[in-house]
């Protein structure tokens, strides 16, 4: 306990390594202008299709919200505010070979892969068929258990590649889900196996009422990636172009066998967590107002107008088309035969064991199950 070096040396801390940039990558400014020298990879047709999907998503949100309030739909979560993040990334995929592994807030990505909108309404009306992806639709079911889908995505990507495919898998999860052990275990495994997977972390500022500052002390989730041996990217999640280019780059890396990428799309949840949530309890109205100014749809619209790719009148027409599309899906879902007792027993096992069969028989015969 005697002689002490006057100033014991401090070790070289890895955190001192400042990352290239902690500012989200932006290509499309809020006023609709492009970054200096940037030429979008999306063709005009694709861009219009992406915008259409963003609008469709917003239309579904609004329609579904009012249906929920009328008691015609169960609790669901809107995409509102995150359309650029979901659509921009989904447009980097080829639905004929690539996969989407969703959480529950990525409807437009699922639609682009071929999930029928009617099933969305069926699902949130409480019909199990709503979570059945038709054959050929490369999407895993909605995932309610947060982060549990991330290991699935890694296994899927690894398995596809091992069977000779050049498919990429894009998995979505939230800032909240990123705290689960599953997220870590999956990303670490993906690094080891160089699995062709893109981790699309939508940081929408909230996990229900928990702000991201209580979720992690990291400056960006993208900083997690070096700890798994692959690149992390921080993008402006309200910028369709930036999200798309980052996702494209990541998908190409995946296809080329270069392994996974983590993308933090920094966006904002403009609606409640779900229709059962009351965000006025915890969201600062000024903050919300400021965030509304950054609506990703507004931004793309400004660009489209400037480029004269879509006039106000054309958009009006598009909107009414979309509303018709949504209404048709709602009508179809509402006309669908209701789920019944048999849905409790079907698809539990390929071939139900005797006990389950007996339970089914008694239940459907109206008898008691013992």
């Amino acid at each position: 306990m005697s002689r002490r070096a006057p100033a014991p040396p401090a070790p070289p801390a890895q955190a001192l390594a400042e990352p290239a940039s902690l500012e989200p990558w932006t290509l499309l400014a809020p006023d609709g202008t492009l970054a200096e020298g940037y030429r979008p990879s999306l063709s005009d047709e694709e861009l219009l299709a992406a915008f259409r999907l963003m609008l469709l998503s917003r239309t579904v949100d609004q329609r579904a919200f009012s249906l929920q309030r009328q008691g015609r739909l169960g609790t669901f979560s809107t995409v509102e505010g995150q359309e650029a993040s979901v659509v921009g990334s989904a447009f980097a995929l080829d639905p004929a070979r690539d996969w989407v592994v969703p959480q529950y807030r990525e409807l437009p990505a699922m639609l682009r892969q071929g999930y029928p909108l009617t099933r969305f309404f069926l699902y949130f009306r409480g019909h199990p068929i709503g979570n059945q992806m038709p054959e050929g639709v490369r999407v895993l079911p909605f995932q309610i258990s947060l982060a549990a889908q991330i290991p699935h995505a890694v296994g899927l990507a690894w398995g596809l590649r091992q069977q000779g495919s050049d498919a990429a898998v894009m998995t979505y999860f939230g800032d909240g889900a990123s705290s689960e052990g599953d997220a870590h275990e999956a990303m670490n495994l993906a690094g080891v196996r160089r699995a062709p997977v893109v981790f699309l972390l939508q940081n929408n500022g909230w996990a229900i009422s928990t702000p991201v500052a209580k979720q992690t002390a990291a400056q960006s989730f993208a900083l997690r990636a070096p700890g798994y041996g692959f690149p992390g990217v921080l993008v402006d999640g309200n910028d369709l172009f930036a999200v798309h280019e980052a996702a494209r780059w990541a998908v190409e890396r995946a296809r080329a066998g270069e392994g996974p990428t983590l993308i933090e799309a920094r966006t904002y949840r403009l609606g409640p967590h779900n229709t059962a949530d009351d965000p006025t309890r915890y969201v600062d109205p000024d903050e919300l107002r400021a965030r509304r100014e950054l609506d990703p749809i507004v931004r793309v619209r400004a660009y489209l107008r400037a480029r004269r790719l879509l006039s106000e009148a054309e958009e009006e027409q598009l909107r009414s088309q979309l509303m018709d599309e949504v209404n048709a899906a709602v009508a179809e879902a509402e006309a669908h035969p209701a789920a019944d007792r048999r849905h409790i027993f079907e698809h539990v096992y390929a071939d139900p064991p005797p006990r389950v069969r007996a339970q089914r028989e008694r239940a459907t015969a109206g008898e008691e199950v013992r």
Partner: protein
Amino acid sequence: MAVMNMVEAIRSTLDAEMARDERVILLGQDIGHNGGVFRATDGLQERYGEDRVVDMPLAEGVIIGAAVGLAASGLIPVPELQFLGFGSQAFHQLEGQVARMRFRSQGRFGMPMVIRAPFGGNVRTPELHSDAHEAKYANSPGLKIAMPATAADAKGLLTQALRDPDPVLFCEPLRGYRLIRDDVPEGEHTVPFGRARGAREGSDVAIVAWSAAVVVAEQAAELAAREGISCGVLDLRTLVPLDVDALREAAAACGRVVVVHEAPYTSGFGAEVVATVQQEAFWSLEAPLARVTAYDTPYPIAAVEHQYLPDAERVLAAVRTAMEA
């Protein structure tokens, strides 16, 4: 006495115990500023500060795992699982750590802790939110399991749990949060563990249940009464410890027993009740013990959940079968 619903009883109990013992600290997802997704902790962060009502990152494993360390440090943590179904994410911490730390450390580190966890069906929650997992925890020695069916017991058992030197899994019936309302004793009120509650007297068939299934049992007893069958209802209140004496007496009194629970049939806690009763009251039994439960299928989507869970009709049918035996 004051009439309260279950969530009010829970909230006021947490409040009272936090005021009484500064070591009590709550942790969970959305429990602080938001007051919990069911408002069970509403206002408590305002009252006791952010250090005692802590919004946690979204990770059940560390909500439970950190509670182990908090308990070792001298506090009495009350981790909330937002839904019991997500306790599976923390299963290794619950069965492997919380339950065994006293044993592992040979008494050096007790784990005074209450794990609050809403569960149960017929409230149209999404998948995995309704699951009744109690049997899995009952096979995990070191834990105690409380499952109140009334607001008064919610208070009494929660107070008891918070003062227990061992970890208690405290399961709260979602459906009962607002629907279950009854007289709650004011002031100090504890309900000892391992004492079932005779919810209804009866002489023909004893219906055994816990948590929200007690309500179903009572409805069935009511229907049976109209048919001239007298059903008793025994509310177990805690599964571990199990009130073996009350089970024996109920079976001896009626000779016929029906167990009701929301978990799947196979290897549900109903099996334990049946096995215990036949052990203890074999010679009194006049009919096979019956279990009325959910099916051996995953908890289904909202549209059919009411057909999945035991209801009064199904319980009544089992009661009739028992009477015919």
